[in-house]
């Protein structure tokens, strides 16, 4: 099993460009998350989804959009990229249960110039 797969691994965007970060999981987990990681700030939740067709905002959703049309995929869309969106983005999943951990992808390092 691949687990949680993120693509691309690295990307450089120009200010104002758009892109989609892909996240796919083969763990059959209901819950999926997008986090961003900035130096000294830990991980901040951008958006999450409890199942196909259901998404909700996290702590830092501005400038991002998500969709969840299938259990397996949870893409993160950046519209009009800004330098403040330079970060490392992590997709994660968890089971629909109380006592469960989050499983992480390898991350996408995004630079906006």
């Amino acid at each position, binding site marked *: 099993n691949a687990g949680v797969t993120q693509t691309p691994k690295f990307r450089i965007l120009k200010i104002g460009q758009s892109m989609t970060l892909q996240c796919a999981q083969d763990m059959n987990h209901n819950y999926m998350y997008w*986090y961003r990681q900035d130096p*000294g*700030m*830990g991980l901040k*939740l951008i958006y999450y989804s409890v199942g196909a067709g259901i998404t*909700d905002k996290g702590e830092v959703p501005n400038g991002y959009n998500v969709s969840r049309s299938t259990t397996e995929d949870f893409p993160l869309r950046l519209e009009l990229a800004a330098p403040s969106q330079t970060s490392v983005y992590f997709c994660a999943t968890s089971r*629909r249960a109380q006592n*469960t951990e989050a499983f*992480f992808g*390898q991350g996408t390092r995004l630079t906006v110039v």
Partner: protein
Amino acid sequence: AQSVTQPDIHITVSEGASLELRCNYSYGATPYLFWYVQSPGQGLQLLLKYFSGDTLVQGIKGFEAEFKRSQSSFNLRKPSVHWSDAAEYFCAVGVHDTGNQFYFGTGTSLTVIP
């Protein structure tokens, strides 16, 4: 509101020495607690977790952590550090709310010197 505090931004230890990384949390109910490790350029890997029961939990790579409810702490320990333990360590609280929310500390960077 839930929060996780890791008071040590950076720690340096000698190889073979013992290690303790501190974590304090703020949460009204019984927390689910986790320690993750992140090597450079990698994702987060689960070291250990606490849900209930024995307050001393064992994890991978020889790590252990102790839950102390009275101190709202979940400190990570290792008796003898190896050079390969150099990484970033994150403490997290899991909240069974809409979608199992996970709240992370800001991380502690560990350097191991020969």
